């Protein structure tokens, strides 16, 4: 990768940028076709029970309605790995909002009216949707999301805690959160005989193709899934969601091209959410700040459809040196929608709790919170004992403190005041694991001097096309404008999904290998290329997924300055600053956007985003974008992202770590800690809306 003029590391402009700013970019629901029909789902209106009857008579009598799919007439599917995809296969209703019918019609208006006219009757059963830390059905699962063990323990954390000089025993609560990408989950499906073509909004077309192939029992080579442009996902489009199955069923049943774009209000129930997490933390330290015992226990919920356990206690296994350490996850299966991935599952809520508790500990110790973290820097990964491939958290903290102007800070809570505003600042650390999956790619040298690089990567807004072209250019020793890159179709060489901050590492690895191989071949070739050019292929299986002797994580530090209005309890973030150590930054322009985007979502998690499970009805009350408050322009002030150079040879050929998720990790804690600094009040439940903040200020 070292060269005099590397393209990697340059701030190349997004390759699809022009299409996006002119409106020419086509998303999954935007596929013109004269025979197109539109589908609209019918969600269950009971929290638990079974469908006893679906009366579609009135719906079918409406103009334009073509079909009403129910569990009685929908195509039978092979059993899916993901039970949330077994839609319309049986009458069971595992939670409110589960789809019980689908209307297909000539126009979107006809479909919506048809769905409103379907009459469904139910036999209901008592339901329980309320998570409590003492829930009698809470259990310790075998593992949490991503295969982490649910429980780890080293030493004797309880005894070490009991005998410690300085202790913090505290609890935090993160509510359910919703991904809400701006593009709702959407699919356009068409069958040509036994050939299936699907345009889908997902984060990985290969996994969608393989899932459809299995469910509909069609060979994978007769299924094409295209995800050319994807309007965000943040985990909620990581694997196929019911829209892709329903649209494909509807297309098969009606013989039409069918578009199903899920209505926004349906999303919270069917595309996954960040499960609520109840945290208990016990930290013990010597008077000099060195941690002696860390216990992080998390209770969360899952649905009765499948077990998904938000791995919120796992960052404590990575962060700080403590001889005694326990992490534990408990889960309760409730009659709730199935939770799933949302940007930094585990790390985002876990580091909110851990980094808030660390701030409490700094207060108990009378110690600067930056210094407290530096004092507890471990030599090896605390849980595994593995050496870090690279770890520059201390550098991030110091660089951030310098850039933020931390040095002059009066540590006394409630020491900053500007008229009716209390002003405070806070810090928190961040971490996210380095991951990669096997991927394939091919690279072709064309006679006209261009190179065509193909990989089924998905650009969900990360700039995948751009950075992969940069990687290819360097491996080929060619200028960037000679690289053509094709992504976003399952007909391209298979590749993993965009998730786990691993897309660039996984895809880039195979692109790098294919291009390196092609460059070698070209070097040994003389004379003109044949008409079809010269091609090289790569498959990183065995390398990208090899077990590493190194503990590999990205780290970061977040600093926040907030104002708290003493009249209303309204909190605003004036400044947010992040410094990251995330390996080599391959494209600073798009990387900065990802960091800032993650921090913005963390700001929402801290201040505006919260969802409520309605105990009586079993659904999320804040089901639309008027009531679920993602941050608006006016909420987001100065947000800066910086990084420290990190040269880590133990990652992948590019030397990169993932950057898509670490921005959200720690942001909420930094803001919460700043609010404590501003007000002297420790809030332990998110979001920090006026209904919580003002009464606490007045009670003080």
């Amino acid at each position, binding site marked *: 990768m070292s060269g005099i003029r590397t393209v990697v590391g340059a701030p190349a402009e997004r390759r699809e940028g022009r299409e996006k700013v002119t409106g020419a970019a086509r998303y999954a629901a935007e596929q013109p076709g004269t025979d197109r029909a539109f589908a609209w789902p019918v969600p269950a209106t009971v929290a638990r029970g079974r469908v006893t009857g679906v009366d579609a008579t009135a719906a079918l009598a409406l103009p334009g309605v073509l079909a009403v799919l129910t569990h009685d007439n929908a195509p039978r599917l092979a059993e899916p790995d993901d039970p949330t995809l077994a839609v319309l296969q049986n009458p069971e209703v595992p939670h409110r909002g589960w789809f019980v019918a689908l209307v297909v019609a000539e126009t979107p208006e006809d479909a919506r009216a048809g769905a409103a006219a379907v009459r469904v009757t139910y036999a209901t059963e008592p339901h329980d949707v309320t998570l409590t830390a003492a829930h009698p059905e809470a259990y310790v699962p075998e593992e949490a999301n991503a295969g982490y063990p649910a429980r780890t323990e080293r030493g004797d954390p309880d005894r070490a805690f009991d005998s410690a000089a300085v202790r913090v025993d505290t609890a935090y609560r993160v509510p359910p959160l919703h991904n809400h990408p701006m593009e709702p989950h959407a699919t356009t499906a068409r069958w040509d005989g036994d050939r299936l073509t699907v345009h889908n909004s997902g984060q990985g077309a290969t996994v969608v193709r393989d899932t459809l192939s299995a469910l509909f029992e069609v060979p994978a080579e007769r299924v094409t899934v295209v995800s050319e442009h994807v309007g965000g996902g943040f985990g909620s489009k990581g694997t196929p969601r019911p829209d892709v199955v329903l649209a494909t069923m509807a297309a098969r049943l009606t013989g039409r091209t069918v578009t199903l774009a899920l209505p926004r209000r349906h999303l919270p129930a069917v595309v996954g959410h960040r499960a609520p997490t109840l945290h208990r933390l016990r930290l013990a330290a010597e008077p000099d700040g060195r941690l002696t015992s860390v216990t992080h226990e998390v209770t969360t919920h899952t649905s009765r459809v499948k077990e998904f356990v938000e791995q919120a206690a796992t960052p404590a296994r990575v962060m700080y040196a403590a001889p005694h350490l326990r992490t534990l996850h408990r889960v309760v299966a409730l009659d709730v929608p199935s939770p799933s991935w949302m940007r930094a599952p585990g790390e985002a809520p876990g580091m909110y709790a851990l980094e808030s508790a660390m701030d409490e500990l700094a207060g108990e110790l009378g110690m600067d919170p930056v210094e407290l973290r530096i004092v507890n820097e471990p030599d090896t990964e605390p849980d595994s004992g593995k050496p870090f491939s690279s770890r520059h958290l201390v550098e991030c903290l110091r660089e951030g403190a310098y850039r933020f102007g931390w040095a002059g800070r009066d540590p006394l809570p409630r020491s900053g005041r500007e008229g009716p505003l209390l002003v405070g600042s806070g810090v928190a650390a961040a971490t996210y694991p380095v991951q990669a999956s096997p991927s394939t790619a091919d690279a072709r040298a064309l006679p006209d001097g261009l190179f065509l690089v193909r990989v089924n990567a998905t650009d969900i807004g990360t700039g995948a096309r751009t950075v992969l072209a940069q990687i290819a250019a360097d491996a080929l020793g060619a200028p960037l404008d000679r690289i053509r890159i094709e992504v976003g179709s399952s007909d391209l060489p298979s590749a993993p999904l965009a998730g786990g901050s691993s897309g660039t590492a996984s895809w880039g690895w195979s692109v790098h290998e294919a291009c390196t191989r092609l460059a070698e071949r070209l070097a040994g070739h003389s004379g003109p290329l044949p008409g079809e050019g010269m091609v090289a292929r790569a498959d990183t299986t065995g390398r990208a997924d090899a077990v590493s002797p190194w503990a590999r994580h990205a780290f970061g530090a977040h600093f926040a300055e907030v104002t708290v209005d003493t009249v209303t309890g309204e909190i605003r973030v004036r400044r947010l600053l992040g410094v990251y150590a995330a390996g080599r930054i391959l494209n600073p322009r798009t990387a900065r956007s990802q960091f800032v985007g993650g921090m913005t979502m963390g700001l929402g998690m801290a201040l505006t985003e919260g969802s409520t499970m309605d105990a009586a009805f079993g659904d999320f009350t804040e089901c639309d974008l008027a009531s679920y408050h993602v941050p608006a322009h006016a909420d987001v002030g100065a947000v800066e992202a910086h990084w420290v150079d990190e040269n880590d040879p133990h990652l992948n050929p590019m030397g990169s770590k993932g950057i898509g998720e670490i921005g959200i990790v720690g942001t909420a804690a930094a803001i919460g800690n700043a609010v404590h600094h501003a007000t002297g009040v420790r809030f332990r439940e998110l979001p920090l809306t006026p209904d919580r903040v003002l009464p606490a200020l*007045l009670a003080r």
Partner: protein
Amino acid sequence: MKTFDYVRAASVEEAAEAYAARPGARYLGGGTNLVDLMKLGVERPAALVDLTRLPLDAVEELPDGSLRVGAMVRNSDLAALPAVRDRWPALSQAVLAGASGQLRNAATTGGNLLQRTRCPYFQDVTKPCNKREPGSGCGAREGVHRDHAVLGHSAQCVATHPSDMAVALAALDARVELYGVEGTREVAAADFHRLPGDRPDLDTEIRPGEIVTGVVLPASTAGRPSAYRKARDRASYAFALASVAAVVRVESGVVAQAGIAFGALAHRPWRARRAEGALVGAAPTDDAFEHAVDLELAAAEPLRDNAYKVPLARALALDVLTRLTASART
């Protein structure tokens, strides 16, 4: 959304006739709430009578110093009117505190008054709601009701009125002009919206088929110090958790005139008559303001999860009253 007939009226008279001739008709203004509710299935009109091209978009200075704003004047234009900004600033501020630039460009003055509650149970046709379906029950009273009413609610309904604009109109003694087949009439803005009682399906005093033709801002509050302040969950584009509009005139060291209205606390903009009564004649001191506001809010009956609204409304009111009287207090 079910299909519907569409009629574009040439005059107010024609509109009222078209409405009367079509059972199940609704009037269409900017549509920002009606079309939303039609998509949700909450509103199911058989016909829409489009009022947007009626000649109700004028703004007139009346001889007595009041200002008549046509019902079809868009919210953004209303907020930008120099006359409104200069003489009834609370109204401009209230309108600009609501919705978004795009919505304000479409929403009309009349439509803003007639918008429906954003209670999530009202908006979800699969749940009980006495406002949407009388007799079906109230999901909010024992359900998720952080945003709901603390004043004037009933066993039947705990919804709040969502408008910011209407709160300012109530405080400013504005009047709502109505046209119906029986003729024209005026209703005080503060009395235009109802409390739910046992008829939560009725939001306002408007009669079937009546059209809001305009709003009159009276000379009595013109040029008086007035302001609007709102607290919300995010910095913009969110409904109020609580809000207050106030107009205050201090003469010779005592409050000579006071109009105060709260938003997001009740089924209607809550005109704080008790507080006003306590203030008029009193010196504009912190104690007087606290006494007056507490007198008003003593009537609050918070639900399980919305008690925060009372101190929030109190703090907003004290802040606005203090600011409006700052020059008279120094």
